[in-house]
């Protein structure tokens, strides 16, 4: 049998109910069909996840998957992806994290881990030398992420290990619990931590021992150096490294696109207090980078004293700052750093967490909920202390926190009284801190049709019209120049978004980070560079066009998965606030004018039916997804 290069060639299957681990060989046909990472995961989820299963039941799957490039010298490749059915949305759930866990999982000998079943008692999974074992974690249950990671490291002894763990939020099945690896790197959104918690799986520990073989070491090494030089000398990447994502606070505020007060407006007067400048001057210790990253956007910060004193930890990044800051009209940087630390340590998605609390504050202000609901808590804009109290209450599901632990979407359904109108969500996932009204209409499309709900990074950060760059996508057919960021229909937006979304799938399947596709062609991982790196690493010849076709397969399987779970066109719609004008600031009055037309234009570009949103038979045949076609036919959801 020929050896694998780039891929480890092993898939680990874990049945926690039976306490069994099985190592399988990776299918030789899969790389050309699905590339890897979320591509493999989508295939497994379609084949093996029982339709309409409760995501927190023992029948559901949790998949950890790394791409072929993960853990190699290719810049920006240190990523781990998780796939599952989301307890937040009931649809496709996926999430990505940096750090070094993905790399270490591959060094331990596995491309993918497929977990099913529920353990009787808490356990953790230990990976080393292409072997795996299930170990008792009763003593770790109840610990925060940092405590559990410290305890595991002590237990393992003199070895370099990487730990992906859940905190109390995951154990308590908070619907938006995250899986946190390497202390502070969050696979945040969609509720993977709750799925992991429902399986009584506290952590996965990877300690390496196998390494990754390279097909053409000399060529791969020189290609990596070339890519590194190009990426590090690009000014956009330099700024990202220098100021991190939080650098976006001031620029987005200046254009009126900084989501503020639960998306009422896009401008926050005190934004300078929560800017990158404020962080760097007073609280930041150093920069950090994920495994194999040449940009290094991560901040490492602390608060030395006072009531928000926080030990050194990674963060906060832009999303967290906005969700705990402007969204709740809070301008206290120290409280934000503390919030980030607590959310990571309890293992919760900072976006949904901050957004849900902001929603509650607005509902309270409008009198839709009152002290009877909150258990006596007074919710006010800009009250950082109550904000932080709620974080604790949510993680442990205490009092009012028990309701907020369901996320704003489910919570509003339980309360009613008009609070549903205030929820900014698509498919149940709260909007992140990018406003499609002011920023880019690509965002409006992505929020509406994205497989995991409203997300600015899955499959990719799509505002190329705002950034004015193409990341090399012109070579695979991106219409250029792109329309003005505020123009909506009749400007090739659907066609352009198709290429952008598929590029995102390429990145997610390869194991790269999205930030490597946010500059000009020369300074990014453009499609042909990705293809060259991939071929020299794996020895599998694929050009950019073929890789994009594999990505389109993944994109459509995710769509099919959602259709099987009950997705209809109505789910692909933006919340009310997106069609309501922004209240103040430079973008005052802007809104999404034609949400329906935007979505339909994208449907047509992807080869989906305009009226129903179902995938057309011809599209599935073109991608030779025969089983998916049969599956969808049996439920009458093919157009």
């Amino acid at each position, binding site marked *: 049998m020929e050896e694998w290069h780039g891929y480890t060639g092993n898939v680990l299957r874990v049945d926690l109910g039976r306490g069994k681990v099985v190592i399988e060989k990776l299918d030789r046909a899969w790389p050309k069909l699905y590339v890897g990472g979320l591509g493999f995961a989508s295939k497994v989820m379609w084949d093996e996840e029982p339709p309409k299963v409760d995501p927190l039941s023992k029948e559901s799957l949790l998949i950890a998957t790394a791409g072929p490039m993960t853990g190699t010298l290719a810049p920006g490749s240190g990523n781990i992806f998780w796939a599952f059915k989301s307890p937040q949305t009931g649809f496709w759930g996926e999430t990505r994290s940096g750090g070094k866990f993905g790399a270490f999982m591959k*060094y331990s000998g596995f491309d993918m881990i497929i977990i099913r079943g529920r353990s009787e008692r808490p356990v953790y999974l230990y990976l080393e030398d292409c072997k795996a074992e299930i170990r008792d974690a009763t003593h770790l249950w109840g610990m925060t992420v940092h405590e559990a990671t410290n305890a595991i490291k002590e237990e393992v002894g003199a070895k*370099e290990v990487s730990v992906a763990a859940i905190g109390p939020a995951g154990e308590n099945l908070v619907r938006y619990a995250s899986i946190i690896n390497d202390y502070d790197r969050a696979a945040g959104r969609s509720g993977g931590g709750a799925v992991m918690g429902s399986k009584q799986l506290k952590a996965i520990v990877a300690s390496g021992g196998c390494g*990754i073989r390279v097909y053409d070491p000399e060529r791969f090494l020189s290609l990596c150096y070339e890519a590194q030089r190009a990426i590090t000398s690009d000014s956009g990447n330099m700024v990202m490294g220098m100021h991190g994502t939080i650098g976006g606070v001031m620029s987005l505020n200046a254009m009126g696109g900084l989501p503020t007060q639960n998306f009422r407006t896009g401008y926050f007067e005190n934004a300078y207090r929560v800017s990158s400048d404020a962080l760097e001057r007073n609280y930041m210790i150093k920069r950090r980078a994920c495994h194999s990253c040449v940009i290094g956007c991560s901040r490492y910060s602390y608060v030395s004293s006072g009531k928000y004193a926080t030990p050194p930890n990674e963060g906060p990044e832009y999303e967290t700052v906005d969700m705990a800051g402007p969204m709740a009209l809070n301008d206290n940087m120290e409280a934000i750093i503390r919030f980030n630390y607590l959310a990571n340590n309890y293992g919760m998605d900072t976006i949904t967490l901050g957004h849900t609390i902001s929603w509650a504050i607005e509902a309270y202000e409008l009198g839709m909920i009152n002290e009877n609901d909150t258990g006596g808590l007074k919710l006010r804009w800009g009250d950082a202390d109550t904000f932080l109290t709620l974080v604790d209450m949510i993680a442990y599901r205490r009092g009012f926190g028990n309701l907020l632990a369901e996320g704003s979407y489910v919570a509003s359904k339980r309360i009613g009284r008009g609070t549903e109108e205030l929820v900014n969500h698509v498919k149940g996932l709260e909007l992140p801190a990018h406003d499609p009204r002011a920023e880019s209409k690509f965002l409006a499309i992505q929020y509406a049709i994205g497989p995991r709900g409203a997300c600015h990074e899955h499959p990719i950060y799509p505002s190329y019209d705002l950034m004015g760059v193409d990341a090399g996508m012109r070579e695979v057919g991106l219409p250029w120049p792109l329309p003005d960021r505020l123009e909506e229909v009749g400007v090739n937006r659907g066609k352009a978004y198709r290429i952008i979304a598929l590029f995102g799938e390429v990145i997610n399947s390869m194991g790269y980070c999205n930030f490597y596709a946010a500059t000009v062609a020369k300074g990014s991982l453009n499609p042909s560079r990705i293809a060259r790196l991939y071929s020299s690493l794996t020895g599998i010849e694929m050009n950019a066009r073929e890789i994009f076709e594999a990505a389109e397969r993944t994109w459509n399987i995710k769509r099919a998965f959602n259709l099987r779970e009950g997705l209809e066109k109505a789910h692909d719609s933006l919340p009310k606030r997106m069609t309501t004008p922004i209240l103040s600031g430079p973008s005052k009055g802007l809104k999404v004018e034609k949400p329906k037309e935007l979505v339909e234009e994208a449907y047509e570009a992807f080869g989906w039916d305009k009226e129903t949103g179902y995938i057309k038979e011809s599209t599935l045949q073109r991608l030779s997804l025969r089983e998916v076609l049969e599956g969808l036919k049996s439920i009458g959801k093919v157009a």
Partner: protein
Amino acid sequence: MVKVLMVIPDRCTGCGRCEEACSLYHFNVIDPLLSAIHVVRIENEPVDAPVFCIQCGLCGIPGICPENAIYRDPNTFSVIIDRDRCTGCGNCVAACPYGVITIDRIERKAIKCDLCGGDPQCVKACPENALVYVEAEDAAYYKRIFFAKLQRKELVPIVPYPSPKPAGDS
């Protein structure tokens, strides 16, 4: 002039690319356990530090290697372990004060930095220019700064006490 591998500690972000390049260059495999340079990251402390061999030669002094497999390369001044003769006894690992010699788990032989024959890959792979390969004289200047900084926090009695006043001085 001979060059010296050095680190500018503030710059390291802990990405680990030096480890990957090192193992890929020497073993055609990407595996931090086969790397001669080690990035130590302590996640809950502000520590990201590449730790590597400073070519002190302690492992090469007579009596440590039973096979006499350790010698100094006259061109790069690096201390080299001849892997053909290495038996993996681990004496050099014990002798190394910095913990940068390891025994690989496949061949059971010692891994140690050889400066890639004068073209260190870790320097090429470092995106932050935290690792540098500089002329010995420049390196000596930076070494002095480094050791000076170690003395920053506390008074160290390396200056002789003032001598007693000369007799007859009022």
